[in-house]
């Protein structure tokens, strides 16, 4: 029995370390996907610049930029180039009013102007560096939605809040230091919850 315990102890140690690592990786994602929607319908989409409720008023622009790059890498759909899409938004709404809620009628016009079937909108709730002990780590909280331009319906949404720092509390292994890196990871995590086409 003693012999068996001696062999199990290192295994338990490894399991504990792996468990902690896995626990540090994930943050819960709140997600909704319309059960009756065929996501292959969304062949071309656009991104409305995200609004920001955080201290950093430019956070919406920063996260939108990262989300655009991440959406392209995911090959979810053809994504309208931000300049092209901004021009279409301006034709529908004029300048400076992108953050107001979108009515079904406005979305339909935007869909027609930009030739898109879906529009991503988003809210940045937190985007800042926070103190943890003597160090500063990023904190990002984002909600992203996909709206159908023909009906104005919400077809998908996902949100999460995540803090950087080490994946394991006692080592610097896999530390996320920057808001940019954390934002990329969060956008990827949220996009992974879009139902496969």
């Amino acid at each position, binding site marked *: 029995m003693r012999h068996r315990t001696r062999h199990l102890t290192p295994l338990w140690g490894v399991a504990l370390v792996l468990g902690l690592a896995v626990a540090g990786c994930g943050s819960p994602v709140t997600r909704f996907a319309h059960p009756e929607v065929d996501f292959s319908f969304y062949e071309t989409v656009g991104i409305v610049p995200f609004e920001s409720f955080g201290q950093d008023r430019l956070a919406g622009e920063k996260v939108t930029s990262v989300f655009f790059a991440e959406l392209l890498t995911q090959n979810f759909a053809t994504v309208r*180039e931000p300049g092209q899409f901004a021009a279409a938004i301006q034709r529908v709404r004029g300048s400076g009013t992108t953050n107001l809620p979108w009515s079904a009628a406005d979305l339909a016009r935007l869909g027609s102007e930009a030739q898109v079937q879906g529009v991503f909108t988003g809210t940045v709730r937190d985007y800042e560096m926070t103190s943890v002990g003597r160090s500063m780590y990023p904190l990002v909280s984002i909600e992203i939605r996909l709206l159908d331009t023909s009906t104005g319906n919400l077809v998908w949404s996902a949100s999460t809040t995540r803090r950087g720092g080490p994946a394991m509390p006692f080592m610097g292994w*896999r530390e996320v230091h920057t808001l*940019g890196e954390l934002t990329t990871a969060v956008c990827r995590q949220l996009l992974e919850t879009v139902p496969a086409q």
Partner: protein
Amino acid sequence: MKPRQHMRRALVALLGLGILAGCLPKPRAFQAGPLEASRRIAILPLSNYSADRDVPDKVRPMIASVLGQRPGIWLIDPGAVEAALAEEPWLLFDRIPPDLVDSLGTKLDADALLVGAILGSGFRQEGPDQVPHFSLSLRLLQTPGSRVLWSVVHSRDGDDGEWLFDFGRVHNLEQLIELTIEECLQTFPATGVADTVSAVPAPGAQR
């Protein structure tokens, strides 16, 4: 110590270093496909979402210096780009309307425009130390048409490469910016031109 033990320790050390090396953040890139044999590219001023007001002026020449070394890439004279922009005043350089993309392309005789934004640049507090960080997004737009040929977003922190007691840490922001740009441009699509001849062609030169 037996040779087998030596080998085992060396393997463990190598594995450890491999894991650490694998932890470095990688740029997230999209490529529409390989570029044509050669490309004339105009680098536009970058939008700046960081608190450092001067950083776009530092970053643009750094991008030019790395991109200009790539075979088959011809960079358009920055003076000509500024002159074209002076005729078409526009502030949001990472969100350019398609008609402006087309008109700049025609004026500069460019095949593509490189646009982007600095998402963050500066220092963060790590205990008593100031650690630099830098975050960048870039996009290559075809002219005419604004088709996205390449897109990348990348963020680096001075501590990313640190593996033990300050070894591997980058202390200098300029050095970190250079590193970030090099890593971003490693994902730039190939042109199919083998030689490293990338000077700006003379006016009227055959393309």
